[in-house]
């Protein structure tokens, strides 16, 4: 029996993985070959998806990107024993793109069968939780704090401090909420973990529940991820069947359960208080802070709200110890960052590395430059509210503070690369338009400011009083930045201002054209 891995990851499916798996099964049956097809997560080398891996004595040999039409020739080439083929990439673990990484959060993703509790345990799964049960609440919180882990949802708030705040609240009903809204363009790490290693998220939530004294956890998942919903729901059931969720987990005396909830297509529901409103069944309108969700959260109870990656990293931190994690990274950016490389790139995918790697290395070296082969013009880092960074800043190290110092952000770690055909005035307009579409409507600077922003940019595009309108636009950005209640309105100026700052010529094209 030969073991074959074909990802169930949504990106792999989008490139034909389901059809490929069916074709491989059919061809194997027709040839009388015994195969077991495991639907794994993705290794993150997304440009190679769908990537077939075959287990051989030499290791797992990869073939990708494989299409249905390649199946017969793969069998002919003896791929079941690692035979040579034009699509072969050799042993996957030895691939240079894999070898350069430092996989921590993603160490099991693409390796294991995401829906096998036994496989998860065989790869050190639930070791973190077991240790958590041994050391108890205060020591867990301490360990998370010492690791230096900062929330991966964008703001980079220290996870340990958040947990301590909730743990210190009087005993009673508390909640663990996982933010799986992942609405930022260019991000897909949360999705990949939930598809490729969902039990790590369940384990992280259980550790958190144990540390803060909560018995119930919710995962709020965006509706744009139908494949995740299926996989994660199945993972919850597997964990429950195996006694890793539910009453008296593994004899610890601790009860904890997880429920999956699906959002309804509103970007702002990624903002934590809006997310809580939505979970409660209301419109996703942002709440004023304070009170913090840690004190008054879901249904008015103390609540930890963490991003998927923050939560899924915790089991490994407990297993390996805080120091192991804290020793990685630079400055106050400790540990690793799963970079999501997207847009106009040759080698798009998920690349996990220690903080501190220069932006230019990521774009030119790891991502291989643009897919179109044209020169890079800009990289938007940190989602739709992130700044556009020009090539002249490519020596910027990837860490929270270095980016902040350049009026930029790293957000959730997504990078979208653009070639020189992009019109930055258009992208600035899109940024404002997106804010207008997605604004929750609670405060004027965001609700009205974004609409005025679109109008003003349209005037600039039409060559109408260009310099005057640019000044007006800057003014609007300033008002939005400092007058908005949450970061949707508050950060929407980042793409606009950075476009203006680094690509001023794109804002004056119409005036130049008129002058010619």
């Amino acid at each position, binding site marked *: 029996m030969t073991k074959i891995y074909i990802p169930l990851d949504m990106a792999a499916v989008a490139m034909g993985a389901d059809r490929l798996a069916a074709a491989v099964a059919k061809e194997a049956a027709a040839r009388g070959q015994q195969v077991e097809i495991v639907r794994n997560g993705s290794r993150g080398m997304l440009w190679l998806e769908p990537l077939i891996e075959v287990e051989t004595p030499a290791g797992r040999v990869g073939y990708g990107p494989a299409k249905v039409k390649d199946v017969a020739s793969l069998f002919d080439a003896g791929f079941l024993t690692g035979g040579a083929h034009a699509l072969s990439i050799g042993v996957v673990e030895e691939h240079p793109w894999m070898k350069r990484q430092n996989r921590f959060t993603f160490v099991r993703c693409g390796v294991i069968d995401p829906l096998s509790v036994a496989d998860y345990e065989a790869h050190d799964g639930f070791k973190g939780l077991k240790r958590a049960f041994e050391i108890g609440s205060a020591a867990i919180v301490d360990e998370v704090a010492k690791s230096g882990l900062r929330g991966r949802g964008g703001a980079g708030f220290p996870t340990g401090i958040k947990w301590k705040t909730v743990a210190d609240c009087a005993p009673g009903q508390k909640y663990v909420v996982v933010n799986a809204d992942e609405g930022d363009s260019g991000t897909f790490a949360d999705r990949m973990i939930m598809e490729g290693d969902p039990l790590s998220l369940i384990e992280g939530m259980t550790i958190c529940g144990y540390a803060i004294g909560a018995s119930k956890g919710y995962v709020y998942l965006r509706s744009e991820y139908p494949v995740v919903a299926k996989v994660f729901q199945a993972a919850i059931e597997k964990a429950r069947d195996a006694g890793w969720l539910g009453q008296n987990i593994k004899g610890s005396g601790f009860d904890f359960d997880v429920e999956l909830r*699906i959002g*309804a297509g509103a970007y702002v529901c990624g903002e934590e208080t809006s997310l809580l409103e939505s979970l409660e069944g209301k419109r996703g309108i942002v709440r004023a802070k304070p009170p913090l969700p840690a004190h008054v959260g879901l249904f008015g109870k103390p609540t930890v709200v963490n991003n998927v990656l923050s939560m899924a990293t915790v089991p490994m931190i407990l297993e390996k110890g805080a120091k192991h994690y804290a020793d990685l990274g630079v400055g106050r950016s400790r540990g690793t960052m799963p970079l999501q490389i997207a847009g106009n790139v040759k080698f798009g995918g998920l690349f996990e590395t220690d903080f501190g790697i220069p932006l230019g290395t990521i774009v030119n070296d790891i991502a291989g430059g643009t897919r179109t082969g044209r020169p890079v013009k800009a990289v938007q880092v940190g989602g739709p509210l992130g700044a556009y960074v020009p090539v002249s800043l490519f020596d910027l190290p990837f860490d929270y503070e270095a980016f902040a110092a350049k009026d930029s952000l790293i957000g959730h770690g997504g990078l979208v690369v653009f070639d020189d055909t992009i019109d930055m005035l258009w992208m600035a307009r899109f940024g404002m338009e997106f804010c207008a579409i997605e604004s929750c409507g609670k405060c004027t600077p965001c609700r009205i400011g974004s609409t005025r922003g679109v109008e003003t940019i349209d005037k600039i595009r039409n060559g109408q009083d260009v310099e005057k309108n640019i000044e007006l636009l800057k003014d609007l950005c300033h008002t939005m930045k400092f007058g908005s209640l949450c970061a949707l309105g508050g950060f929407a100026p980042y793409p606009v201002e950075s476009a203006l700052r680094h690509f001023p010529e794109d804002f004056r094209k119409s005036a130049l054209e008129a002058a010619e």
Partner: protein
Amino acid sequence: MAGAAQYSDERAREIIAAHMGLEGPALPILHALQAEFGYVPDSAVKEMATALNISRAEMHGVVTFYHDFHSAPHGRHTLKICRAESCQSMGAEKQANDFLARQKLEWHQTTPDGSLTVEPVYCLGLCAHSPAALYDGEPIGQVDAATLDEIVAEAKGE
């Protein structure tokens, strides 16, 4: 959605009742109603307001806040085309506009025969394979003009 059931207050009440044990049941109910009937009829909103003991206006406010819920039937199939930044970096905006022009449609509109509704979506998490789309929940990476046209043909043929 293909095969949507005919609306009845009685069926709506059943669906609502099935979710009343949940904490904060509104979104799960709305998803279930839309899965069953293909949209969220006003009568169902009224039933929900009664069951959740809130005003109809408040319930209406919830339904209209979210992009996913719609109060009138859509086409039998739905095509969501991504227009967020990563997809734009690979020419999604022009491709989508050309497609809409070919079909004589605008965003959110349904083909005259009721077979297909076209909606914009802001990131599908398929950004390493931009431009991307989602057809009746099936993800499609590196979508091109030919694929979009095939989808219309397929939707019409069913």
